[in-house]
């Protein structure tokens, strides 16, 4: 297990598929990825395309690890905006109305657990679908 800094944000794929349909497989594939530095992946013992569990004090999610040439320094991971990553975000806005969506510490570990579909994720976390 490693402690890394999570950045969330938009990607072209996430932007396109969110307009197509958020309940589609295409959307799920575009936002259930975790872009990682190759060195971090090596140290963690996870292969490109392998599943990783990302945890905070709020909860945990499973996403697919992807080697990124955009993240050139170890210690940072990137997950596109979406209901998966939001399920582990803290809600404290520090009196500003804005939760910390970029640059907070998460725990990352390899896992064999599957990535939940949107309906399963909503059912597991919020009890409705």
């Amino acid at each position, binding site marked *: 297990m490693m402690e890394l*800094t999570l*950045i*969330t*944000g*938009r*990607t*072209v794929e996430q*932007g*396109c*598929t*969110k*307009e*197509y*349909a*958020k*309940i*589609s497989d295409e959307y799920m594939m575009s936002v259930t990825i975790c872009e990682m530095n190759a060195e971090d992946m090596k140290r963690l013992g996870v292969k490109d395309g392998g599943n990783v569990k990302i945890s905070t004090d*709020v*909860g945990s999610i499973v996403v697919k690890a992807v080697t990124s040439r*955009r*993240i*050139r*320094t170890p210690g*940072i991971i*990137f997950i596109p*905006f*979406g*209901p998966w990553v*939001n*399920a*582990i*975000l*803290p*809600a*404290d*806005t*520090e*009196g*500003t*109305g*804005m*939760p*910390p*969506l*970029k*640059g907070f510490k998460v725990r990352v570990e390899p896992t064999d657990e599957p990535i939940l579909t*949107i*309906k399963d994720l*909503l059912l597991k*976390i*919020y009890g*409705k*679908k």
Partner: protein
Amino acid sequence: MYVVSSVTCPFCGCCCDDVEVIVENNRVFDVRNACALGASKFMGYNEHRNTKPLIRKNGELVEASLEETIERCAEVLANAQYPLLYGWSNTSCEAIRVGLELAEEVGGIIDNTTTVCHGPSILAIQDVGIPGCTLGQIRHRADLIIYWGCNPWSAHPRHIERYTALSEGRFQKAIWKRYLSRLILESARKKRYRVASLAFKGGAATLLAEEERWIVPPPEERKMVVIDVRRTRTADLADMFIKVKPGGDYDVLQALRALIRDEELDVNEVAGIPVEKLEELADLMVNAKFGVIFFGLGLTMSVGKLRNVEAAIKLTRDLNMYTKFLIMPMRGHFNVTGANVVFTWQTGYPYAVDFSHGYPRYNPGETSAIDVLSRGDADAALVIASDPVSSFPRRAVENLVKNPLIVIDPCLSPTALMADVVIPSAFVGIEAEGTTYRMDHVPLPLKKVVDPPQGVLTDEEILQRILRKVREIKSKSSSS
């Protein structure tokens, strides 16, 4: 088949108004001039569409009549003590105006998506003001463009091409040629890197260091700088890329403020950036004739939030002692600026407005959607043109979905899947006309290029019907 020209794109805050939509049999057949995101919206909007009003019965969403769903919405809102009305940034100004009337009528909280994007920017602007202009001025005159904590390549794909470095201005030329020659050089460098990493140990490191070199363009040419925590695709286009450590933006902004006043820094680096590189950037800023900083969620969502933006605005203010410098937030949703504008002209405040006292109150941190939900204060919610289940933190969503939830949206979003009442609406900017505000506060008309499916109303019409119904219920209860 016919072409609808000068269509305003209803995707991001760029609101590109040169889009051409080709329509055949009331369906979008093709779209020209739009970016990947805009084209995806025009081409895919009807693929996974919900056109039926839905009500949750026995735990399942089932079809219902429009009248039944509107009546249920009105009952929920009229009977709630402290309802939250959230969303608004993906609909027209006309619909937002009705939404504000509804919020006042039901004595609820009304908030727009600013709260999770540039809310901190607004707080900073209210503290220190903002030197701004229209994007046309930037296109024609800006010779130094700085993108700070934003990635327009992915989030605003035509921003660089239409308004900044790659646009052909009247007084500033596009940097296409320089970008293409750099692309060729970069491609050759990568090939050398691959060969070197295969051939001998250590060779790769030498060539990696090579990328950090910055070739200064001629002084008369337009320059583009990117400052971010990771090397985004936008950074590949830039003449200078500065990588800052996560959470280090405030330090870098204050360091630059010191440097442009010719003060010495007693450190070797600031937030992972060598001071020499910051000095180069400070020189570039001071020597620009017309500079602009575009900033994104990298400043508003990371540690420091509004203080980061405040420091960026103060840096811009300081730079105006030497030259002309401006600053502008990169707004995300196509009408989030419009939501701020309409909220402000109706209530005096741009977002997070509380009508529970009978008059508008504004205190982000207390009256903002996430705080209201996290505390568990709201006892019902109406979500329109937005998907908070995908964009809010878990505790806020848990409290959102445990109370009656109404969703007005053209798509079956994750929020709609969790709702108790779902009313399908027409896509604003595709199936309904209206007004939107571009990120530089320029109002633009949204066109209706195709008719909505039968029985599907616009957001404005749906809200007006709900408002009428709420008033009926309230007048009945007050007379009895």
